[in-house]
């Protein structure tokens, strides 16, 4: 039973409170969805429920939070962990051991439980999560979906009554997300209280007893996301010049498995194309080929009239964005970051204009790592755009972004395409794909469909 009464909280050194006047009651066994834009306070709320605020994060608060009758400050963190379990977004940083069965018991070992009890809990967790057959496997060999399952198992083994999930499916593809649905359902059936924070929550709505919308640190009364506009793009007259073409391309990382099998398509200048498909469908491989990072084993590929291009041919003409923007920001200030690429290439660039388009004029002298996640993603894209490449390729640009920021990004990309650029991106998010003009779906290395959307 969770009771929150007129609770407000401000992070240390922050000007504005992260949570304002929260009033909330959650009954045991309820399954609750919390949704809202980035920065609306969802994660902060979760941290108040699992004791991380105030034990790890200081800061000032007023009002009260009570978990099963006690306030988080009254008990040490390791005791709270036995009542409230938390699963975070990134499975990589939640796995500590090198073997699955060792990692499942990490939490139990920390609780100093007797040996027989640990073994009992471990086996139960492994069976419940469907990891029993993999228990001897090494953790780094697991796929993303299974890694997250392992993270849930090690929390499950501690047998809390409340499960908090902070954007757990962000990096997952369709298949893994369906599996995760079963896990949440399983927890719900066992009578656990589940509090679920997610951007891509549509698939989980049937399981939810309640939906809470947050905005700017408050619980909003109305449906805050109902009125998001869907940016529109008129079907621009496409030029007939082809910028990328692939003919009967095949590729395999080792001889046995064909990652790409007979790929045939052509992309024209000014198009925006989304590649969809599950992990392992080959979409990232195609994207890498288009930027010269990989060469096909068989078949023909032509980019910007260069046959079988390599990286060196395409630097400055093709921009590639990896999934994690933080790995692509190298400068000391935002404006330096925008000027970095053109500087290396010896080109001039209108930094002012790009700052304006990105909406980062106020932050021009800030260090790139101090701005928000969404702003960093936009900055990474703008820094590539500033090099004025003919093609921009983005690998999973929607990861970790809320709809609002994604829409902002897509408007930037529309604008870029209208000026003659070509945009290609890969995504597992069906809704993001809808905003592209053309959607190519892949499955196991082959193209399933290539359709014009919208």
């Amino acid at each position, binding site marked *: 039973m969770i009771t929150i009464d007129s609770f407000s909280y401000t992070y240390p050194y922050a000007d504005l409170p992260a949570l304002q006047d929260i009033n909330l009651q959650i009954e045991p066994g309820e399954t609750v969805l919390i949704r809202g834009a980035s920065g609306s306070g969802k994660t902060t709320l979760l941290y108040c429920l*699992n004791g*991380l605020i105030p*034990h*790890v994060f200081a800061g000032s608060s007023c009002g009260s939070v009570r978990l099963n009758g006690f306030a988080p400050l009254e008990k*040490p*963190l*390791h005791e709270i*962990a*036995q009542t409230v*379990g*938390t699963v*975070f977004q*990134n499975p*990589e*940083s*939640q*796995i*500590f*051991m*090198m073997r699955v069965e*060792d990692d499942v*018991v*990490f*939490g*139990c*070992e*920390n*609780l*100093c*439980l007797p*040996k027989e009890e*640990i*073994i009992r809990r*471990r086996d139960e967790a492994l069976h419940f999560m469907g990891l029993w057959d993999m228990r001897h496997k090494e953790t*780094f060999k697991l796929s993303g979906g299974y890694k997250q399952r392992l*993270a849930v198992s*090690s*929390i499950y083994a*501690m047998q809390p009554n409340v499960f908090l999930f902070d954007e757990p499916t962000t990096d997952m593809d369709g298949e893994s997300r369906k599996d995760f649905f079963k896990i949440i359902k399983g927890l719900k059936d066992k009578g656990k209280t589940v509090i679920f924070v997610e951007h891509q929550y549509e698939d989980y709505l049937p399981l939810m007893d309640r939906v809470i919308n947050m905005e700017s640190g408050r619980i909003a009364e109305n449906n805050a996301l109902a009125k998001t506009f869907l940016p529109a793009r008129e079907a621009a007259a496409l030029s007939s010049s082809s910028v990328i073409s692939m003919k009967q391309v095949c590729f395999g990382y080792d001889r046995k498995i064909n990652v790409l099998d007979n790929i045939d398509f052509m992309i024209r200048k000014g198009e925006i194309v989304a590649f969809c498909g599950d992990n392992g469908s080959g979409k990232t491989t195609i994207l890498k080929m288009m*930027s010269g*990072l990989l060469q096909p084993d068989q078949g023909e590929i032509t980019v910007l009239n260069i046959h079988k291009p390599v*990286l060196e041919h395409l*630097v*400055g003409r093709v*921009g*590639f964005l*990896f999934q994690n923007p*933080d*790995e*692509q*920001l*190298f400068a000391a200030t935002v404006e330096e970051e925008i000027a*970095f*690429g053109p*500087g*290396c*290439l010896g080109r001039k660039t209108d930094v002012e204009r790009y700052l304006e388009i990105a909406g980062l004029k106020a932050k021009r002298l800030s260090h790139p*790592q101090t701005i928000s996640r969404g702003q960093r993603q936009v900055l990474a894209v703008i*820094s590539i755009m500033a*090099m004025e490449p003919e093609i921009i390729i983005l690998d999973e640009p929607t990861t970790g972004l809320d709809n609002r920021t994604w829409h902002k990004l897509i408007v930037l990309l529309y604008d870029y395409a209208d000026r003659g650029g070509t945009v290609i991106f890969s995504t597992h998010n069906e809704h993001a794909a809808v905003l592209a003009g053309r959607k190519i779906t892949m499955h196991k290395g082959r193209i399933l469909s290539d359709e014009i959307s919208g």
Partner: protein
Amino acid sequence: MKYLDKETFMHRLDPRTKIILGLMVAILIVVLKNPSELFLLFFAVLILFGILRPAKNTIKAMFIIMITALFFTMISQGFFYSLEPRTIIVTILSPDSGFLGNITGGISLYREGIIYGALQSLRLFSAMLLSAVIVMSTYPSDLLLGMESMGMPKRIGFVITVSIRFIPSLLDGARRILLAQRLRGLKVKGIRGWFRAFYRLLPPLIIDSLRNARRIALAAEVRAFTGKRTNLKELIFSPQDWTFLGLSMTGMFVLILCQEILP
């Protein structure tokens, strides 16, 4: 050398036995003087290495490392041998040839030095082989468990576990950052390129690591990590361990005694 997933005698030994073995061999390496005893030690360690039945590639790699070490040791000791008698094979710098000659006292290659170097490499070989044996026959988490039960604080064990665990992802991150930089036009060829790459690589890598460190810390906190913990796996000394330790200890004392007593 990486962990070898096999079932050999060495694998079955308790990790603490192997650590103690490492300490014993370390002491012997420092203390032994006679060539015959150095050879004995080397062969003993070689036998242990053989028990593991490593892959051909591993043997080849070890061999190359040892030959390189042998070569450099022979050369370095060949030049720096300072005891008499010594016979010169070739002189690079004569002692009276000006400033450099005076400072260095001449640089010449001595035959006795080369032989001496070859002999002393046996110590290096024994050390290299034994450390490889320990690591190839013990799973890293077991090794840490052994050290913890021999007195290493658990929080340090946690630090090492985390650092081992995250090397592959850090390496991947570093590669991706370097690639992203090349894609933005940064030129990384040549010595200047190297330094430029390093200089630009480090801050984003470190900031990413700091973020990761925070996430890992939070994940540990919600798993009730306090530094005080029990381990599911228990280490127990088996009769084989005691026998092995006993034999090794005896061997060590015999070798040292022989050296002191016999002329």
